[in-house]
Each structure stands twice: as structure tokens, then as C-alpha cells.
């Protein structure tokens, strides 16, 4: 404090040149603060970007990926998150994942119960649209797809297993899902809600399956009078989820296990 008063004292005189030095230090301090702030911002941003690891490592989501998807880890690496597959799908089955799915943000998946991939496009358009090969271009026909495999998850809810028929709308009149009814119009998918059924024995999963020989109804006993039938899934099943979408039981008696689920179980 007393340094400010001018004195002839040579010791104090020596201290005066320090004053501008101190100012310089202050400027340097500001520079250092800026530098630390920058390091902090960088570390924070990289840290935040790593938050995306959590849902992936914890395997919080088992998404059914579109036809031709690589194994999950490769798929997440190769997908460029552009949504071109979303755009070409005629039944709009493909959705993009949100931020809660970590590094899967922006990657395509199919919620089969809401809208299954029914191969309305015939030639796996999403695969052709994919610019990176995350949906592998090795696939050209729907029969070659392996998205997952169907499984009779709730046999006691299955109408066929109970020997019952089905009359009416498979999913109610508010259901938005579309399906290709080939005998009506080969090229235009129709709303499932516009298409009532009247079946003696419910065979919707077999009837609407787009793949030949993927699923069939088998008798549960040798008794000819027994109307009960079991849906049996064969090796040809591609896991498109049409059976899961059309199943009138709530929740669906038949579900598709995504490829990733099977990878993880195995």
C-alpha cells in the first residue's frame, strides 16, 4: 500500500518497475483462464459425448433393425444416420432412434407391433437406399433377410391354440398399420383397420406371412375333432414381424426376437 507514495528510497525504486509486470501478469491470467476454460469445455464435450455409451453398454434396447442390417456393433459403426431407408419404405415401418438410445441415435429400427415390414416393396428398397452398407447390399431378395425370428411368446393367449376363430378387425378400427393384401391390390398397401376377417380358426399369422414356408399351423393332438392348432415357426422365417403386427391377442401372442436379442442370448 505504501509503495504508491513516491520516496527516494532506492529499494522502493526497484519495486516500481514491477507494477507494469503485475499488469502483464493479469493479462496472462486472463489468457490462462481462457486456456483452462477451453480445456474444460473440451473435456466436458468429450465427456458428454461418452454418455452415449451407457444405453449401448447396458443393452437397454433390443431393436428390430431393417432388412439386411449388419450385426448390431457393426451396424452402429456403419450407419451414417441419414434416414434414407426411412424415406423409401412404402409402409413407413422404419423409425429413427432418439437420444436415449445412445450411439444408436438416428439409426433406423422397426416397431413391428405398430408397423411391421411386410415387404410391400418386394426388392428390399431400404437396403438399396442405404449409402453405407449398414444394411448390407448382399441381400437382394426378401427370403434372404434375417432380421430376427418369430416366437410364440404367449401360447395361452393364442386363439388358434385355444381352437378359436376370429371375426372382425385384427387390431381394432383405430389401428394405423398397413399391410399388402396381394389378392386385392398387389401394389398398394391397405390399412389393416379397413380389412375385416371372418375365420373359423384364427390363422392370421400364417395367412399374412409374406414369406412362403416360414410359419404353419399344426394340430396339437391326433384327435380329428380337436380344433386346436399351434403356430410353428420354420427356418425360413426372416423376422419381419408381420405376424406380431397382425396378431389379434393383446399383447401379441407371437413376437419377433430381433437379431440383436439372439446375438446377446448366444
Amino acid at each position, binding site marked *: 500500500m505504501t509503495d504508491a507514495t513516491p520516496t527516494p528510497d532506492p529499494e522502493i525504486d526497484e519495486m516500481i518497475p514491477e507494477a507494469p509486470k503485475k499488469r502483464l501478469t493479469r493479462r496472462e491470467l486472463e489468457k490462462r483462464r*481462457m486456456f483452462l*476454460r477451453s480445456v474444460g469445455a473440451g473435456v466436458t464435450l*468429450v465427456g458428454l459425448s*461418452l454418455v452415449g455409451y451407457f444405453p449401448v453398454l447396458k443393452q437397454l434396447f433390443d431393436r428390430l433393425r431393417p432388412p439386411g442390417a449388419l450385426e448390431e456393433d457393426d451396424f452402429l*459403426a456403419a450407419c451414417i*444416420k441419414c434416414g*434414407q431407408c426411412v424415406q423409401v419404405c412404402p409402409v413407413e415401418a422404419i423409425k*429413427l432412434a432418439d437420444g436415449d438410445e445412445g450411439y444408436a441415435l438416428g439409426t433406423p429400427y422397426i416397431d413391428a407391433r405398430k408397423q411391421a415390414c411386410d415387404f410391400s416393396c418386394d426388392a428390399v428398397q431400404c437396403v438399396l437406399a442405404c449409402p453405407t452398407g449398414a444394411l448390407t447390399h448382399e441381400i437382394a431378395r426378401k427370403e434372404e433377410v434375417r432380421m430376427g425370428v418369430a416366437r410364440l411368446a404367449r401360447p395361452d393367449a393364442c386363439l388358434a391354440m385355444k381352437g378359436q376363430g376370429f371375426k372382425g378387425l385384427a387390431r381394432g378400427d383405430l389401428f394405423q398399420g398397413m399391410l399388402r393384401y396381394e389378392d386385392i391390390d398387389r401394389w398398394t398397401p391397405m390399412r389393416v383397420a379397413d380389412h375385416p376377417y371372418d375365420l373359423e380358426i384364427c390363422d392370421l399369422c400364417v395367412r399374412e406371412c409374406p414369406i412362403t414356408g416360414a410359419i404353419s399351423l399344426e394340430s396339437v393332438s391326433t384327435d380329428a375333432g380337436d380344433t386346436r392348432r399351434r403356430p410353428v415357426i420354420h427356418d425360413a422365417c426372416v423376422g419381419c414381424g408381420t405376424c406380431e403386427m397382425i396378431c389379434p391377442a393383446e399383447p401379441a401372442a407371437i413376437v419377433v426376437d430381433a437379431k440383436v436379442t439372439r446375438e446377446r442370448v448366444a
Partner: protein
Amino acid sequence: MKWFLHAFAMMFGAAPRKPEEGEVTDAARAMMKFKKLPDQVKLRKQRIAEEHEFPVVSNKWRNRRWASIVILNALFIISYWFDVQLVEGALTASRFFGFHMADVFSAAQVMLAFKEVMLNLVIGTATVVIAWWLVGGRAFCSWICPYHLLAEWAEMIHLKLARLGLAKDHVFHRGLRTVLWAVFLALAFFTSYTIYEYINPVGIVSRALIYGPTVAIFWVLFLLGIEVFYSRRFWCRYVCPIGLSYGITGAVSPVQVEYNLELCLHEGECRKVCLVPHVLEVTKMGYASDTFEYIGADCTRCGMCVDACPQGALKFKVRGLDKVI
């Protein structure tokens, strides 16, 4: 050449500096000497005062640019919603009338993460590199990036708040962007995830516009909040590796903003509006190396300085166009 390399290095974070003795042309040196004559200084001050009295406000380039951002992003949206196939996809990768386009940084991440060179991506990236080299590299940022438009609005609010003393700009080191660019490419390679895409506001906004909003949009709102209250144009200035990639792409682009030393009054209106003011250091007295000079590689060709300069000392220029015509 050395001076050009300095301008290039500035994009990666090097501090601006005055040109050294050998880097200034004789004409520029003579002109600066002339400008420092007392009567010239007086004249310049007088003209600056006149300008401040009758300010000329032009938003010509800004309006064109905003129209460009809106129209180009609308093309993506229209292509999907009306199924007209003009530009399918999002800004990370798309097809323009069937031709593959891929964002340089997104494509680089995917190839590093997947460890395979995909032909379609190489074609798409090459197309994009050539296209953006032609129109000026970071022109991507200011002429198409939807986050840029949001950030411009956030910047307007920030400047208003700053004038009222309610917000203060916090400057970061520009080298941060270079470091993050390298870190995110390395992370893609070592983790096999396209990690940057998780926080990439450009991809998030682009997808939100086309496919509908997601919860991820809150991250973008948070970033805009930072830009409004804490640091002016934080993401575009100090973080975005996409911007740096396009900056490299357009370093020797034919489309440039050209600085005319003779017309310049060195008042700094241009630096006040610029997203990357270090490229306009040449407009400071004694910083120019030539009488005409292209401003640095980091320039987004947004034209704000062209609009802001009352003397017309900064102009868009297509290199070699005069020779062609």
C-alpha cells in the same frame, strides 16, 4: 506462400499476427505509409464520423443466405413428405437426384469406425468435396447448415443482452476445435462408434426437420442457451469439426471474399459482425500483406462483412472468372 500458410494455420488455432518484412508487397507498404500521413489520417477520421452519422445498413447477403438455408433444407423436407426425390436423406448423407452425397466428417467417422472404405461413401464424399471446394468450403456452414441459422438468431439475442449488460461473451481458444476434430476421429476409430454424431447438432436438427423432432433436440436448445448467455457462437467458433472439415475443403476455393486495402478505413465494422473475426485481422492497420488479399480459409463466405463494410472494401470474388470471361 508463407503468408497463406499462416492464414491456413489460423484456422487450426494459430494466433493472428502482422505480416513480416518479406511478406508485405511494396505496393501495400507504400499504401499503408500513405494512409498514415497526418492529413490522410484526418481525412479517414472524418469519413468514419460521416459514416456513423449516416449509417448504411444492408442485409443483402444475409437475406440471400437465409433464403438459401431455408430453401435447401425445405428441399430435403419436401422430398420426403411429397415423395419427389430431389434430395433424399439428411445432411449427414443424401442423394441429390440420385447422386450420392456424404458429409465429409460423418463419412470419415463411419469409415474409421467400421474400418472399411465404402465405395458409395467415397463417391458421395468426393462429390461433396468438389462441390464445396467450388463454392467455398465453409459456405456449407452459412449457406445450408440449419444449426447456423438457429445460432445466428441466438447470436442476435446474445448481442442484445450483451448491450444491456445481461450477458458477457466468454472467449475460448480456437485450437479447441482442432483438438476435438482429431479426438472425435480417433474416438470413432478406437471405439467403433460414431461418437461425435451423438452430440452433433447439425445432424440432430437436420433429422428433426425431416423426420420430426426428437428428445435430442433439447441438447441443441441447451447449446443455443450457452450461445445466448455465455459464449457468442460457441459451437460454430470453437467446436464444430464439420466446419473445420469444410474449411480445409475450401482453403483454395475459387470463391473468396477479397479485401481491398485502398478502400478500407480500418474501423473494424466487419470484425464486429464476423463469425470468425481472426480472418479479418488483415483489415487492421498494418496487418495487410497486399493491396488486394483473400481473407483466410476459415471464412464461411457468409457475406456479413460485405454487407457491413460501408466502403465496399470487402467483396465476393470468383477467382479467375475475369480470365475465363
